[in-house]
């Protein structure tokens, strides 16, 4: 038990260090960015009609000319006190903007993530099982193509097929256009989440499929698998008894590692589907030189990714007793 607490404490410490590292790195990157917040947010043409006094005032609002170190220290000190700062673009607290965006896309992202895992695992097993058959080859090739396709491109194709050609699904947004919030139903939201969710899960599932297929092939060629078959167990029973646990390990690692990919991919998919998620806020903040918001989004994503990996670490123990922490000594 003590070991376990120590292990968790160690993990949390690592998370703290990771967040610190991420914040320093993103701050450095953002400071090195050539984006001039006045140019992008006020516009060169509007600046042209402004007096130098006004420009000086705006420069101080956008903190142009404040040394990066000073800005970072100020931001860090505020954060330690629990203040995430105020978004320069949205003029609202960063936490409120991030929370709102996360709430918008969290459901869609979670569905996409779970679906990609389940789909990837199933397809991977099938592809491994029917390696030499047409079905297996087809799955393999499709996965290769899918994993090579850029997410936004896949999104566009799905839009063309389902929204333009078949006209069965909406063109984008998370709610029906022009509909008042009070009469938007869960069904409406679901309908609007299908295409972005599908896009993300298809591109996420591809790599899981490919890895699971490899592992499946390996297992099917293993001595213990052959031995089980020789004893007269059916293929399905063999997979259930001897294959699944071994398959789950790499699949899980990938599944949790791909949280970052889903978040990253959502950035592009949201643009295509006009979906108001965290990715859209990150793009706006990054291009608009909105430091507090950009850092807020980055930190929120880092926490999510870290928690994903942490959950994977915990689950390894559940799936495979050999890795169980603290238990191995007993």
């Amino acid at each position: 038990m003590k070991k376990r607490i120590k292990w968790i404490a160690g993990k949390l410490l690592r998370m703290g260090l990771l967040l610190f590292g991420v914040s320093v790195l993103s701050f450095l990157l953002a400071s090195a960015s050539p984006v001039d917040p006045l140019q992008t947010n006020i516009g060169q043409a509007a600046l042209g009609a402004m007096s130098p006094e006004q420009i000086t005032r705006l420069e101080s609002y956008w903190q142009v000319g404040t040394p990066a170190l000073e800005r970072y220290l100020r931001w860090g000190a505020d954060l330690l006190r629990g203040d995430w700062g105020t978004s320069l673009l949205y003029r609202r607290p960063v936490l409120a903007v991030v929370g709102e965006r996360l709430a918008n896309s969290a459901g869609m992202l979670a569905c996409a993530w779970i679906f990609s895992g389940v789909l990837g695992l199933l397809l991977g097993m099938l592809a491994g099982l029917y390696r030499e058959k047409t079905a297996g080859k087809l799955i393999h090739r499709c996965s290769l193509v899918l994993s090579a396709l850029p997410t936004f491109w896949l999104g566009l194709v799905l839009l063309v097929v389902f929204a333009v050609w078949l006209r069965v699904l909406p063109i984008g947004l998370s709610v029906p256009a022009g509909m008042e919030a009070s009469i938007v139903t869960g069904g409406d939201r679901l309908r609007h989440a299908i295409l972005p969710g599908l896009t993300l899960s298809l591109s996420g599932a591809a790599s899981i499929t490919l890895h699971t297929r490899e592992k499946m092939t390996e297992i099917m060629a293993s001595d213990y698998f052959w031995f089980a078959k020789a004893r007269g167990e059916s293929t399905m029973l063999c997979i259930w008894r001897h294959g699944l646990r071994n398959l789950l390990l790499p699949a899980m690692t990938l599944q949790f590692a791909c949280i970052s990919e889903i978040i990253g991919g959502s950035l592009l998919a949201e643009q295509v589907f006009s979906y108001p998620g965290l990715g859209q806020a990150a793009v706006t903040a990054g291009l608009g030189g909105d430091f507090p918001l950009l850092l807020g989004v980055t930190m929120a994503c880092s926490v999510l990714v870290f928690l994903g990996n942490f959950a994977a670490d915990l689950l390894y123990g559940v799936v495979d007793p050999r890795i169980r922490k603290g238990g191995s000594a007993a």
Partner: protein
Amino acid sequence: MRRILALALALSLSLAACAAPAPQTRSANSGDQVTAAISIESEPEAGFDPVYGWGAGEHVHEPLIQSTLTVTMPDLTIANDLATDFSVSEDALTWRVSIRDDAYFTDEKQLTAKDVAFTYQTVKQESSVNDFTMLREVRVVDDVTLEFVLEHPYSAWPYVMSTIGIVPAHAYDAATYGQAPIGSGRYLLKQWDKGQQAIFEANPNYYGVAPKIRRLTVLFMAEEAAFLAAQAGQVDVAYTAAAYAAQAPSDYSLLVCKTVDNRGFNLPAVAPGAVTAQGVPIGNFVTADPAVRRAMNLGIDRQALIDDVLDGYGTPAYSVCDGLPWQSPQAVVFYDPQQAQQLLDEAGWVRSQDGIRVKDGVRAEFSLVYPAGDSVRQTLAAAVAAQLGTLGIAASPEGVGWDSAYDRALSQPLAWGWGAHTPMELYQLHHTQSESGLALYTPYASEAVDRYMDEALASRDLEQAYTLWQKAQWDGQGGIVQDVPWLWLVNIDHLFWVRDGLTVAEQKIQPHGHGWSILNQIDQWSWKS
């Protein structure tokens, strides 16, 4: 990138079309409703608050939710809205404005001079996009009269009054107003789903003519998504780009809006030698020669640029304010490569063996700097460089970041984009600054031009001011038109898909920025029944 995407989209769409005829589903929108898709960047991040840029700033458009003191007409002259009358004092420093007494906010409180004063005081202190340093104070005379006292004469004041929506003094809280605006305009904000759409409804208490379109839904979409939304028949109006223009969705037609959204190069008009206080070199030997600048103005085939770079969707630009009331008609030049060559010959620029002209041992060469990442300006720079080559001028395009672009522009031509609904732009681009003695963005100075523009600002009559702005450009002997401190190339058309049967109201010449402007007169749009 955009072209490839457009092409690929077209391909997949035509495949889809071959596979099965698209079912003709018409969206529910008709009668008195409009759904419009505009760019994601058009969504006002800080909300629908005039103080933080709604309706004002770089992309000036009518704020719809709020009303303004004056409005600009389709020909960009000034008319009254909330104001019933305005006049300026003898010394041109005090503007006295009377306002109507029948305007009510959507919370049913009357709009009075106090609200107007409050709005202008707030924008003066807080505005993130507008410059109010010329405003000294606002005095409330009575409920329907107020006075703006200025620091210096400013004849463009009526244009300022056309951009700022009036907010209620009794219900304004900077933290929340943008999310739930209260105004006295034609529409009220029914709902705002951040990052996706804003829904407007006609204001039942509006003092003017009741809007024909009772409900407006504005979707914020990426260019491809907006195009697909039109393809799918889910929007009535969608912004688009030239790359898509050839692929009209069925039941839609292309609306081409003329603009003053211009692109052009500044031409440093002084010889090198000096440096700024920060040590940035000023001046360029080649462009310092007025003959070179004039030859470039004559020798650029603007129509070719429009055809090659903009797929034909643009108009030739001859000034920063094409088609606006303060533009001089003399600014227009006709493409004349022979005369351009002759000008260069006469000025002593002789062709060397490699075809590049040389004068006093200096070769006619410079960089055409453009902001990296702006594909239109990059292509323009390349096309202009190719055209200048035939004149014997070696210009090499060079992409830079905005952090160094301003500095570089002091010694090399830089590709700019301007176009505002105020004559102040003409002023800021050409008037000298007191410290440097040169204009702000490009080294250029002309006493006569300065004098005309100062007179224009001090003028008490808009018509007279227009004439003076025009004289700064050409007074019969000289001016900006003759000096060519800026080489204007093209005005970029703004393109939209409009569903057949929807009549879009007459458009003002649209300013820089492709967004809300199309909806300025949304209240006057109509559907054919």
